[in-house]
């Protein structure tokens, strides 16, 4: 677990725990939330890892810098990528909490007696508990949404995207049923929602990212009650499943120190793979060609384990193999020309 993230998530939470005690339904006091903090941090981490995976071949590749979900400086961006980061983080938190519920990590998953406990007060005995996912959603809301302290359009956007992330977890859940009537017939069947692989949530959100809606609210947005009303109205009219952004994305090709962008120079891209998707196949053009960079071929020899005898867990015997691999990187054009004397790069030139 990344300690930075853990701290990051927890500091604002300790700051604002007084505000929560008004409407928290689980317990009172900040101590209660400590049980969840490690799961929350792990969840956020898994969200970021998924973000990195999903954007591995995009110009913007989910750099660590982007993970500052809520910074108090006014430099916060509000673009499409920010929207995705917020959504995947809150989805990761919700996912991990839900999963850890089933592991038995928490004492009271889904069994708040408010819903089922109307008769006799023994919710579990009378009608079972509600879904763990509801619990995960609630706690994720408590933690992630609490990072948003402002009331401006940016805060509203972040809250909306957090919600979209949680909706994505719910939306990708699969309904599974089991028949168990007389002689195993379907006169009685029980259905439940099953958590998908987190990858599916990531893929779903990536699709949403491409279809993200832009909302024009930044012009003349003061902190007056009227503008706050307008913000609330605008966001409530947008489906909770959609990702929302306020600004256009900057040019990720170029390095931009003020925005903390690294540019695509030096990035690896994919080419000529056997079974690459369209998006992956075009990655060299997207990352290098369209950004005015050239592609450089680098050959390397890699040592990896191979011919392993695997069991279902814990590989046992492997051999060491040497493999020649070709990798492609984006480089600046003049740089390549400067070193143009070598035979290798001439060969490369022909290939390009």
């Amino acid at each position, binding site marked *: 677990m990344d300690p930075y993230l853990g701290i990051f998530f927890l500091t604002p939470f300790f700051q604002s725990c007084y505000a929560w005690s008004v409407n928290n339904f689980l317990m009172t006091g900040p101590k209660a939330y400590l049980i969840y903090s490690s799961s929350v941090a792990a969840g956020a981490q898994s969200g970021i890892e998924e973000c990195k995976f999903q954007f591995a071949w995009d110009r913007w590749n989910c750099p660590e810098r982007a993970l500052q979900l809520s910074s108090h400086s006014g430099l916060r961006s509000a673009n499409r990528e920010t929207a995705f980061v917020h959504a995947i983080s809150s989805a990761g938190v919700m996912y991990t909490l839900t*999963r850890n*519920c*089933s*592991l*038995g*990590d*928490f*004492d*009271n*998953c889904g*069994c708040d007696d408010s819903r*089922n406990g109307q*008769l*006799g007060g*023994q919710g*579990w*005995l*009378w*009608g*079972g*508990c509600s879904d*763990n996912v509801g619990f995960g959603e609630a706690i994720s809301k408590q933690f992630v949404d609490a990072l948003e302290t402002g009331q401006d359009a940016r805060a509203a956007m972040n809250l909306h995207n957090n919600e979209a992330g949680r909706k994505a977890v719910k939306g990708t859940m699969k309904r*599974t049923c*089991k028949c*168990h009537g*007389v*002689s*195993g017939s*379907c*006169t*009685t*069947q*029980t*259905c*439940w929602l*099953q*958590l998908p*692989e987190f*990858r599916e949530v990531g893929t779903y959100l990536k699709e949403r990212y491409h279809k993200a809606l832009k909302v024009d609210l930044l012009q003349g947005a003061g902190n007056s009650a009227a503008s706050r009303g307008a913000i609330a109205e605008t966001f409530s009219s947008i489906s909770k499943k959609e990702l929302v952004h306020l600004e256009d994305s900057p040019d990720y090709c170029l390095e931009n120190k003020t925005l903390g962008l690294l540019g695509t120079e030096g990035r690896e891209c994919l080419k000529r*793979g*056997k*079974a*690459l998707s369209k998006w*992956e196949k075009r990655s060299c053009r997207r990352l290098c060609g369209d950004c005015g960079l050239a592609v450089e071929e680098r050959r390397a020899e890699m040592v990896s384990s*191979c*011919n*392993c*005898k*695997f*069991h*279902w*867990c*814990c*590989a*046992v015997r492997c051999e060491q193999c040497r493999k020649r691999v070709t990798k492609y990187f984006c480089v600046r054009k003049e740089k390549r020309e400067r070193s143009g004397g070598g035979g290798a790069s001439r060969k490369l030139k022909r290939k390009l």
Partner: protein
Amino acid sequence: MAGAIIENMSTRKLCIVGGILLVLQVIAFLVGGLIAPSPTTAVPYMSVKCIDVRKNHHKTKWLMPWGTNHCKKLRDFDEAVSRQIEANDIVFAVHIPLPSKEMSPWFQFMLFIMQLDIAFKMDNDLKENAEITLDVSLAYRDDMFDDWEEIAHAIEIRKLKCTFGSPKTVESEGRHYDCDFLPFMEIGSVAHKYYLINIRLPVNDRKGINVGIGEIKDIRLVGIHQNGGFTKVWFAMKTFLTPSILIIMVWYWRRITLMTRAPVLLEKVIFALGISMTFINIPVEWFSIGFDWTWMLLFGDIRQGIFYAMLLSFWIIFCGEHMMDQNERNRLSGYWKQVGPIAVGSFCLFVFDMCERGVQLKNPFYSIWTTEVGTELAMAFIIVAGICLCLYFLFLCFMVFQVFRNISGKQSSLPAMSKARRLHYEGLIFRFKFMMLITLACAAMTVIFFIVSQVTEGHWKWGDITIQVNSAFFTGIYGMWNLYVFALMFLYAPSHKNYGEDQSNGDLGVNSGEELQLTTTITHVDGPTEVYKLARKEAQE
């Protein structure tokens, strides 16, 4: 004429009876929909990967996933690789239920299904028709500080049916296979508070055990049990229905014995239907709260089976006895063709149930579907039962068609008949049509509600009111068939209303004499002797 009560009842009274039954029916639905929670709950469990640190694993030791004595846990298997822990040292532990809860006998049964998260890896692919060998054990305790007591231990083999959605390339390494869930365990009573499941996946390269099953990431279980609230409502309903059916049954049989003639087949069948209904109703399940009777689930299946067989037989015999043709029936042997398939079908299902739930009494992890032979055998039984059912419905439809053909034939000649004969046939036709109507209505209701409960999400919400559709289906349909049997016994009991009238109206003596003759045998009025008798009487007149 002195037929069944239904013919002698005035329309007003019939409407009142119908209204009362309808109100009871609505109540039955509402009890399920509003009071009861959903019938069952599914609880997802994620197994905790424990490390069995002992040198030899011969003596069973129970590994706890959480709590005071929890085991040494592994977060994921990458950790196991780096710590050089072998597959044989890993135990998947699941504690039932989750923390701060306990199980209860009100849950009636528990069944578990298993889902495997198998990750794709280029060089550790899942083999075709891979089989997984599970070393499973189940233990219980009733106190958090007691020792675990073993309930069952078994080595089970399950077939993996998995598909992989993405192309099998390096890029999709780490994605999970989409695997069908596996039947894991079924217990017919929940007598203890805490249960513990320990699963091992022993590896043996030489014997090829658990080789080529891919890279298992997680084992998930889903535990399904009946909700305590539903059990309580269900028991209450049974306890209420038992005496009502019992009372009408006694009343019905007294009516029949009061008559001078011996009971006819149809009357016996209706009575038998009442008995089988009572057999289902008797709330013996109350004992499951106090005793650890794992066979209750099987017993319930058998009781239901008997009732269904009885109901199907009743329909056939009812049609046959209203055939209004020249054939003399009134004997069960006359129906062997139609009742035969019911008997064969029920027997097949009984054998199947004994093979599945019967064996589960001994080994809760057993499932007939896991072996090749078992699956074929089970399929054979089910197919034979299905064929029998189809055969039965063909017979039934044919008989209903015949009855309607005879009815239309009789109706055209009704005005030409003597009063007694006309009344007799009108009675028969009315009784049959009425019966057809309510039977069809009940069957349609059952089918519609079954489909609705399968399609919908389990509960509907109207403002603050939540309606549990599945529970409403169960209580409503159960109540409906009880009311059906109740109405049947009440309305089709022999009437003695006309006997009193006969004594007062002496001048109608001849006609009532005829009626008596007709009622003693419902079926064979058209025999030559009867015609002769009637002809003679008319001549006397």
